[in-house]
């Protein structure tokens, strides 16, 4: 019997320990969850580890901007606290972590959650709980397009489809007889780009002579590019994240091939172009678009927005200032703070969502001059302007004026 008692005691200890981990039941909902007289609680999920960990720095850059704003007295006297959870780019982890943000941490809103699949996995949940899912860090069209059915969700960056429509326009204007080969990443990102291009070309979609997909886990897209070359394409679209894009630029030169190249904006920061050049890419006839200032571009060296960015990012010890993802983070955090400032005393989720979706009209110091972050009751795509840029051998040259794609995506 003595042994049994010992066992029971052990079990009891186990139960007590588990119970202690459990914590207290959630308190009743408030109208302004996450807001106190001197604080605003925001939360995010990002990939701090795993295959997409390169994006993780975005969350840290956002936090650096909030720290900067807090240092200046916060938003109308309230300091922003930013909870960052690591979902390793896996939707199965995004779901419990987002529930934790909403039900346990009681955030006011989720902000800049990363990844199309990840944010899709929690969209229904956040909308049913009426928690703002603001400025998701993905260019998938659905997050702005389907605002009417998901009125608590909103994207920020220009949608991928909008970008490739700009390329389509450029093709039709400047290369109407192009033979187009497309290299695209076999995920929502690459497929969205491809759709935009096909839609944008419309009746001229037959200009696409070949399209080749590759998986993000592949070591190199060499085989696909060799196929595009064999299909006699004279214009190549690279819808790829930075690493395969740089590899592609190198491989194209190695194949003694000189097509006109359209490079998606995600991969056009100068550090990647420099890496491609170092590895032997010729970088002739490369076109891309841009909406954000590139921290490595010398033309912004004395720009006040860029200097402000450098000050802000210096407070984040793990952030590399040259990393384009960091200025993205600071820029989107700027918009978030702008929305919160406008909400003023009416700090409700509903009001904040209303401003973000319908009444935004902002000049963001970290975006290219002339680009507006703007929403209206008829159009919820925040950024729909981009500028065509071409590579001049040492840097990007802005071409023509800003192209406005507003209204093309419905």
């Amino acid at each position, binding site marked *: 019997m003595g042994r049994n008692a010992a066992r029971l005691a052990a079990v009891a200890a186990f139960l007590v320990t588990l119970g202690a981990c459990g914590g207290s039941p959630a308190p009743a909902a408030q109208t302004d969850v996450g807001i106190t007289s001197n604080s605003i609680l925001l939360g995010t999920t990002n990939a701090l580890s795993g295959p997409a960990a390169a994006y993780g720095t975005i969350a840290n850059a956002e936090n650096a901007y909030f720290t900067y704003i807090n240092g200046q007295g916060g938003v109308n006297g309230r300091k922003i606290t930013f909870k960052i959870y690591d979902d390793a780019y896996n939707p199965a982890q995004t779901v419990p972590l987002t529930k934790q943000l909403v039900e346990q941490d009681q955030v006011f809103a989720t902000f800049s959650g990363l990844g199309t699949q990840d944010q899709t996995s929690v969209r229904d949940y956040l909308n049913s709980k009426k928690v703002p899912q603001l400025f998701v860090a993905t260019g998938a069209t659905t997050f702005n397009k389907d605002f009417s059915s998901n009125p608590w969700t909103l994207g920020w960056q220009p949608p991928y489809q909008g970008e490739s429509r700009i390329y389509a326009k450029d093709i039709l204007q400047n290369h109407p007889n192009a033979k187009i080969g497309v290299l695209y990443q076999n995920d929502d990102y690459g497929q969205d780009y491809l759709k935009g291009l096909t839609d944008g070309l419309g009746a001229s979609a037959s200009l696409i002579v070949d399209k080749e997909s590759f998986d993000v886990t*592949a070591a190199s897209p060499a085989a696909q590019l060799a196929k595009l070359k064999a299909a006699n394409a004279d214009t190549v679209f690279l819808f790829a994240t930075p690493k395969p894009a740089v590899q592609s630029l190198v491989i194209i030169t190695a194949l003694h091939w000189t097509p006109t190249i359209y490079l998606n904006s995600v991969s056009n920061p100068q550090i990647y172009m420099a890496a491609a050049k*170092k590895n032997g890419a010729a970088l002739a006839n490369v076109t891309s678009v841009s909406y954000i200032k590139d921290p490595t571009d010398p033309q912004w060296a004395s720009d006040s927005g860029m200097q402000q960015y450098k000050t802000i990012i210096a407070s984040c010890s793990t952030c590399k200032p040259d990393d384009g993802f960091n200025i993205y983070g600071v820029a989107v955090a700027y918009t978030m703070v702008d929305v919160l400032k406008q909400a003023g005393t009416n700090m409700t989720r509903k009001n904040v969502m209303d401003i973000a979706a319908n009444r935004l009209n902002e000049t963001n110091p970290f975006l290219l001059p002339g680009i507006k972050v703007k929403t209206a009751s008829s159009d919820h795509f925040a950024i729909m302007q981009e500028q065509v840029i071409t590579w001049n051998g040492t840097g990007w040259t802005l071409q023509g004026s800003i192209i406005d794609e507003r209204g093309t995506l419905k």
Partner: protein
Amino acid sequence: MQAFLQQVVSGIAIGGIFASLALALVLIYNAMGLVNFAQGEMAMLATFVAYALISRGMSYWIAFPVTLVLAFGGGVVIQRVVIRPVERAPILTLVIITLGLATLLNGLAGFMFGYVPRSFPSAFSAQTIDLLGVFISYRDLGVIVVSGLVLLAVYLLLQHTTVGLTLRAAAHHPEASRLLGVQVSWMLGLGWGLAAAVGAVSGIMVAPILLLEPNMMQSIIIYAFAAAVLGGIESPLGAVVGGLTVGVTVNLAGAYIPFVGGDLQLAVGLAIIIVVLIIRPNGLFGRAATRRV
């Protein structure tokens, strides 16, 4: 025809990359009958060490050997600290340890160097050779040539030196070796050191092609496993032949089997390997294993 040859040649080029890492896997397997899941991450970290040295102004040709020595030391340290305590544990425990090590090293590299892909200098020019309209760069050739040299060195070491003999004896007959006065545990340490150094060569060779970042080796480790297995896991020559075979097969499958396309390359390559294994369970170059009872 030209397009076909170009696919074969780019397959050989990428196959050289697989082979170079597969060699390190084979070494570890020979040294302790273990598949090291952290091999790729160890190679990646060593390459970052070389990167740090070079970016601090050290010349490439000095940084290269220094990195190899450091990688060797790192391999020995890992064996002494992490592997030795579980030397006699079941193989599964060792597998889990190497998986944990892979996670740890990956996170560590991300913490220390960030995730931005970087260009890494190469000993070989990025120029290409034109073989009747089929192109291959000196870099790709360099990887294959260096893999060949490493293969030769590993072969000579394992087959024609006392150290190599002792190493293999310690791996396969630890008890008997111990009786003969072999410091089995230190031989295992030596094996880890060598594998780490071979991995470092692989990392330094492929970094200019794959771009240096913490996940650099993750895209090729599975192919390297496939290459090593196809060649029969114990055979260094098998690893190289296996690597090239996998590279070419995967490329051709992607290009010429319509259903496959670019994105299912890996699946087809692996399916082929599994079929080969079912027909020849010890790989192309493996000897029939004696069944342990």
